[in-house]
């Protein structure tokens, strides 16, 4: 049994090309031509030829899209879509996530299909997309319009993220309360979240997790040891013993097994509450940090502190970008004058940021080695313990290597109905050689006060990836029915 990851989820699309067959040869206000070109035979032949070209175009779409068998549907200038045409699609109702239509004057048949089957439809091209979709949306039906095939390809990839979210099942460790005391802004109406985005939850008690850690099998032990050795081999250096790293990889192997067992593909746990049981200190000698790192590197969303807003945001970013995000506490500097007092606990006021405005920092010991692409090479890293006692493996990357690179931060609103997306540029790395959570980065945003005001509605943990994905997120928000709030007014006033 393997974990059904969101990033492997394809969007299933049923494509159909509509050809209008004119029953006799005539010219008029709706058509023009001459001779043979006006005959029904010509319409039929050219319909097949255009259908063939349509099928060729489908081959150029992303492999994140799985096309069911394309169909050629015809209708005539009697302007009815006959039952035999509906039947060509009826078998795929329930199999396809979306019906994709192209053709000639195809808003009417597309609309007929939508109203008959109540399936999401996508309409390509002028002017069927705008006319058909506006009509369908006004009728309360799910419809999408695409400027051209390239736009359809791009938007279908965004929709794939929506499908991946709908197939997300979170394994959540429970200790004392659903709401961790460190993340009061977390999404609390989980039933509403399931209704809105389709994300589901399986809760297990922390005590069950401890039992699973105690019952580790010899195979799991061997796997944990191998992962730890590989981590050391691939690192630039390690500040930890193999034994202490194995304690953390053991935790990762067990969580992975639990994900498989419960058929989940996302993970979170309440660090504070579980920490307070002292089992990690007294018995297991590990922290969840490496679990989060390694799961994310596989494309499995895994968020600190039972923070569901961050977890959903992370799920969005992983699926949208195929990059393994970092997440962390996020806080801006208030003004041009920065003091040790205005520096968040655990961070240092460093020269690189002293004379810069609109600086914000994000830090947590859950960096990944695949932040520039899950399918790409490992980024250089070293291994540092979370604790002063030397246990709790964490991966550290020096973000100072990427000064000037744009990043996109994201967090969901406590209601689960909005997301805050922030564009920024890396200014410096932070705390790469420290223990604890204070490792991350400083970056510049367009207006840190504006961002902070919005954070007061959204909360403190932000998940982020390299690159500027603001436009994609805005479009994704439309597809998902989630409002997108941005924390920059437009162009960056970088200094």
């Amino acid at each position: 049994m393997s974990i059904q990851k969101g990033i492997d989820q394809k969007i299933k699309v049923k494509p159909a090309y509509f050809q209008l067959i004119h029953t006799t040869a005539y010219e008029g206000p709706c058509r023009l031509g001459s001779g043979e070109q006006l005959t029904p035979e010509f319409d039929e032949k050219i319909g097949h030829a255009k259908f063939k070209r349509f099928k060729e175009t489908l081959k150029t779409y992303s492999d994140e899209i799985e096309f069911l068998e394309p169909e050629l549907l015809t209708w005539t200038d009697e302007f009815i879509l006959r039952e035999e045409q509906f039947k060509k699609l009826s078998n795929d109702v329930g199999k396809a996530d979306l019906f994709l239509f192209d053709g000639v004057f195809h808003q009417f048949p597309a609309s007929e299909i939508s109203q008959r089957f109540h399936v999401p439809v996508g309409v390509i091209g002028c002017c069927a997309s705008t006319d058909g979709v506006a009509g369908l949306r006004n009728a309360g039906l799910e419809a999408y319009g695409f400027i051209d095939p390239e736009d359809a390809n791009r938007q279908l990839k965004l929709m794939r993220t929506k499908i991946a979210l709908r197939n997300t099942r979170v394994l959540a460790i429970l200790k004392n309360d659903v709401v961790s005391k460190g993340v009061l802004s977390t999404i609390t109406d989980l039933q509403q979240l399931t209704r809105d985005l389709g994300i589901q939850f399986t809760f297990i008690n922390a005590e069950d997790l401890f039992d699973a850690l105690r019952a580790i099998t010899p195979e799991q032990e061997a796997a944990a040891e191998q992962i730890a050795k590989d981590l050391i081999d691939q690192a630039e250096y390690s500040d930890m013993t193999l034994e202490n790293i194995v304690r953390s990889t053991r935790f990762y192997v067990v969580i992975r097994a639990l994900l498989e067992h419960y058929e989940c593909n996302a993970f979170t746990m309440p660090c504070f509450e579980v920490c307070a049981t002292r089992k990690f200190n007294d018995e297991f000698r590990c922290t969840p940090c490496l679990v989060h790192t390694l799961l994310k590197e596989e494309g499995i969303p895994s968020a600190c502190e039972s923070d569901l807003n961050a977890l959903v945001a992370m799920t969005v970013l992983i699926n949208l970008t195929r990059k393994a995000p970092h997440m962390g506490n996020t806080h801006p500097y208030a003004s041009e004058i920065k003091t040790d007092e205005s520096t968040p606990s655990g961070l240092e006021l460093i020269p690189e940021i002293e004379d810069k405005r609109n600086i914000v920092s994000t830090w947590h010991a859950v960096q990944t080695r695949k932040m520039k692409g899950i399918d790409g090479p490992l980024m250089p890293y070293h291994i540092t313990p979370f604790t002063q006692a030397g246990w709790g493996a964490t991966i550290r990357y020096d973000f100072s290597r990427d000064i000037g690179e744009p990043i996109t931060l994201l967090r969901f609103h406590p209601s689960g109905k909005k997301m805050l997306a922030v564009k920024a540029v890396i200014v410096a790395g932070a705390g790469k050689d420290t223990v604890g959570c204070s490792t991350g980065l400083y970056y510049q945003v367009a207006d840190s006060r504006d961002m902070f005001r919005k954070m007061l509605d959204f909360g403190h943990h932000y998940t982020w990836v390299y690159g500027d994905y603001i436009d994609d997120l805005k479009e994704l928000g439309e597809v998902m029915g989630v409002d997108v709030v941005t924390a920059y007014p437009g162009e960056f006033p970088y200094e």
Partner: protein
Amino acid sequence: MSDAILSRLLQRKKTTAACAAAVLDSRHSVDPCPEPLLKKYIRHKFLLEDEDSDSGNLQGLAKRSLMRAAGEAASSRYLNAKDCTGATNALTKIILLIMNIEQTFGVHFTPAESADAETVADLCRLVRTAWNREETRV
């Protein structure tokens, strides 16, 4: 239209008719509808000149023909321009050619067969198959 052009077009019509007759004559020969003959017919039908490419690709021939009609400066934008039914000028020309071949050689291709024809060789095969089909039926 100048006399010279008119005369050239009439001559072209005669040559095209002669090619069509030759193709029809080949029906019961050991090599029915030979490719060079059909290609010659198509080239005349498309008003192509000797110096035009000898390609057997229908798209290529149709585009060349459109350039002959529109002038050498015709851009690819013109060649790929679509009418309001989404058909390019080249595709329309190919379908009209196929319909003409059906009419001239007394055959019928299904819309799917027509859509699959990409080369002169494909059209030859279609004509031969249609002739065979008819004879079997007889």
